[in-house]
């Protein structure tokens, strides 16, 4: 089992969820994060002082999924979240040792 973690632009959330549902994925977590990378921060002015806001708001979406479905999930994310502009985000894949569904105690593939 893998965890697919993607960092995306907040405005892409709705489209991504639609894509996931089409893939038959029906479980995920979302965390609000801020991050930076190659994307340049925006310049703002407050009371006459210019300043750069380095950190941009992003969403981190985490999906635990069986190994064989990872490929198509990645495809969907890349297709949906890409704008071509700097700041589109990353996908990271982790290995997961075990998953347990608290409600039923089921483990492994049945848990997610």
């Amino acid at each position, binding site marked *: 089992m893998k965890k697919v973690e993607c960092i995306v632009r907040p405005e892409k959330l709705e489209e991504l969820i639609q894509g996931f549902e089409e893939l038959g994925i029906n479980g995920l977590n979302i965390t609000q994060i*801020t991050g930076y990378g190659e994307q340049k921060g925006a310049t*703002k002015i407050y009371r006459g002082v210019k300043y750069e*806001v*380095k*950190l941009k*708001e992003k969403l981190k979406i985490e999906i635990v999924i069986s190994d064989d479905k990872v490929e198509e999930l990645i495809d969907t994310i890349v297709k949906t979240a890409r704008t071509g502009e700097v700041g589109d985000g990353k996908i990271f894949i982790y290995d997961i040792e075990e998953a347990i569904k608290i409600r039923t105690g089921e483990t492994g593939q049945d848990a997610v």
Partner: protein
Amino acid sequence: MRRNLFVLSLVVMVVAFSSTAFAAEVTAESNAVAINTIWVLLAAFLVFFMQAGFAMVEAGFTRAKNAGNIIMKNLMDFSVGSLIYWAVGFAFMFGTGNQFIGLEGFFLSGGFEHLGLDIPISAFWIFQAVFAATAATIVSGAMAERTKYSGYLAYSIVITGFIYPVVGHWIWGGGWLEGMGMIDFAGSTVVHSVGGWAALAGAIVLGPRIGKYNEDGSINAMPGHNLLMAALGVFILWFGWFGFNPGSSLAGIDLSIAEIAVTTNLAAAAGATLAMIVSWIKYGNADVSMTLNGALAGLVGITAGTADVSNVGAVIIGALAGMIVIYAVELIDQLHVDDPVGAIAVHGICGAFGTLAVGFLAVEGGLLYGGGFDLLVVQAIGVISVAVWTYTTAYILFEVIDAVIGLRVSPEEEKTGLDLTEHDSISYPDFVSPHWKTVEVNKKE
């Protein structure tokens, strides 16, 4: 003491004003003028405070990323509006002229004797100025979250300087509707409907916010970011309405102000109560934002007839307005006109309803009191002609602005939020991303 001397010298002035022979003498007449003056001024201050109420309602009913833009629009409706209304609006509204428009007295330069006021013209002006700003500010809510700031400013100048004053002239300034005997005591039509119909034109020309309506015609909810602020705004508006309606007597010695305060209050109470009940029945739960709108609907509805209907009449008007507003909000949404705060329903539709209701419920002249159809017909003519005038001029205005300056921000700007894109500002930096501040380092320029 300088100020004391001042007082003395002004007593003299008062005396002069009331054409009494004896210096430093106060008379019953001069006192009556003073009572009327302080009444009108205090009422104007209360109406001014409604600007804060509108700002809080509109900001509360929209998303956090646009709160600063809402503030800027409301602040400028009043600030630029005050200057324009001083320069030209007041003259168009109350200057001598024809049945359609006033033409004298720009910059308060005089020539208002025909109004027959006992209070100083300045007192009358400030009372009228805060009314004009109210009409303008109503529109900002319906156009929230997507309007270009410079385009909005242009609109705001024209409504306060021209569109509103013309209607005001017709009904309050000696124009043709006043001549016909139309009753709109404190402005259900003059102020609220004008705001509401301009809001309708604005929302239509702008189009809906991104994501509001789906391709299949279904509707998405876009909850406002702070209902507590919206509620505070409603309380402030209700408070300010006690200046709006009773102040419109223009006279503190006119004891009907007490009755006006009561009808105002009963209508608002009935509006909130009925909106709550109807929302409960329709949605299964007492709805917060609809109940808030219901109170405002009751207030808008009673504004025309506040001095002419009985307490029971006020309760009826308020209750009906509180019900109407819910159906109106839904209808406008189903027509895919996107009005984030319900301004068209509250001010436009309930303003029109309240004006017509006078035709039924005015104790003198109302249909239900045996007064026949005369008044009702006049009221209807007034409602319709104001709607046509306002909608048409506002529609043209918005189209012109759209062509010349641009009325709507780009989709990217809209998604990012107007605070950042129009004002380089974040209204709640700590909440949105509490720690970004620590990484700003600004080198000396």
